[in-house]
């Protein structure tokens, strides 16, 4: 098991996949903060005066972490923040599914009303979380800027 977790190629592959997903997720949200703020509002989980700040800064944390993860720079910090974000997203999505809120997850663009895709997003996030946890536990240092 340890050999699989520490496998250089697997770790590198997961870094690319997770990094690209986070960069892609951040991209449109950065340029449409108002739409993303509305997406956050749909979840009814964030106090009103914090919604805009989350909409402004969360996409940048996603982008910076995604880039650093691929580059292997500030790597442990990026992996920890990515895992924390994954857990946060999954709590929000689970809460939306539990409360029956019919929304697009807002993961990759501003959320809007749909025929509830929050469950699909949650399932996808489970797959991503497996990868981010592998990155957390892996000791591989292949192709990293960090020494």
């Amino acid at each position: 098991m340890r050999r699989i977790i520490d496998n250089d190629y697997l770790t590198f592959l997961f870094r690319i996949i997770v990094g690209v997903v986070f960069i892609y997720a951040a991209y449109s949200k950065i340029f449409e903060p108002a739409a993303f703020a509305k997406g956050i509002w749909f979840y009814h989980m964030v106090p009103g005066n914090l919604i805009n700040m989350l909409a402004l800064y969360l996409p940048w944390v996603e982008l910076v972490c995604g880039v650093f993860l691929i580059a292997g720079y500030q790597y442990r910090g990026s992996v920890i923040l990515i895992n924390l974000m994954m857990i946060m997203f999954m709590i929000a999505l689970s809460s939306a599914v539990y409360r029956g809120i019919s929304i697009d997850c807002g993961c990759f663009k501003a959320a809007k009303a749909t025929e509830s895709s929050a469950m699909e997003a949650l399932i996808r996030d489970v797959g991503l979380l497996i990868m981010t946890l592998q990155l957390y536990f892996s000791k591989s240092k292949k192709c990293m800027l960090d020494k």
Partner: protein
Amino acid sequence: MVGKQVLVILLLSFVLGTATNLLSPNSIPFIGQYRELSSGDGPIVPPTASEGDPPFIAIDVAEMEFSLKSAVFIDARDSEEFICGTIPGSINIPFDYLPEENTQQYVDSMLQSISKDAHIIVFCSGEECDLSLHMARNLQDFGYTNLSILFGGAREWVNFELELERGEGCEE
């Protein structure tokens, strides 16, 4: 070591996020000003609502007004949705199909038996829907003075298992 890396990433994101918002044409206020429902509790109203807009009311207020027959309900959704289930007695004025010219005459003709100071509650499909907000703004411009918007719209009405009126020809 790890804590320092986390701090570096958060600080970098803070600087980039602040700079982007200051320079971007799509910037938003750093602190959002979100109004609450007129009843003062429950979820906040959509970010698209602004000062001066008619108040949003919660389902319990709408139900009370409905049971007292003290308000007129306007369904701003398309006629297909209206036929397939609406608040009983509602008047359907689909916002998306308002005529571009003589809009006020058209709306006034739809509401000819309603006085301008009657309590009017506008709704659309759900909380994500802005049709009711736009319709209420139009009505406000046309001189209707006692307007409310049902937060959560028809979906909230259905969620609370309240009475629905269905027309003929629903193809659901």
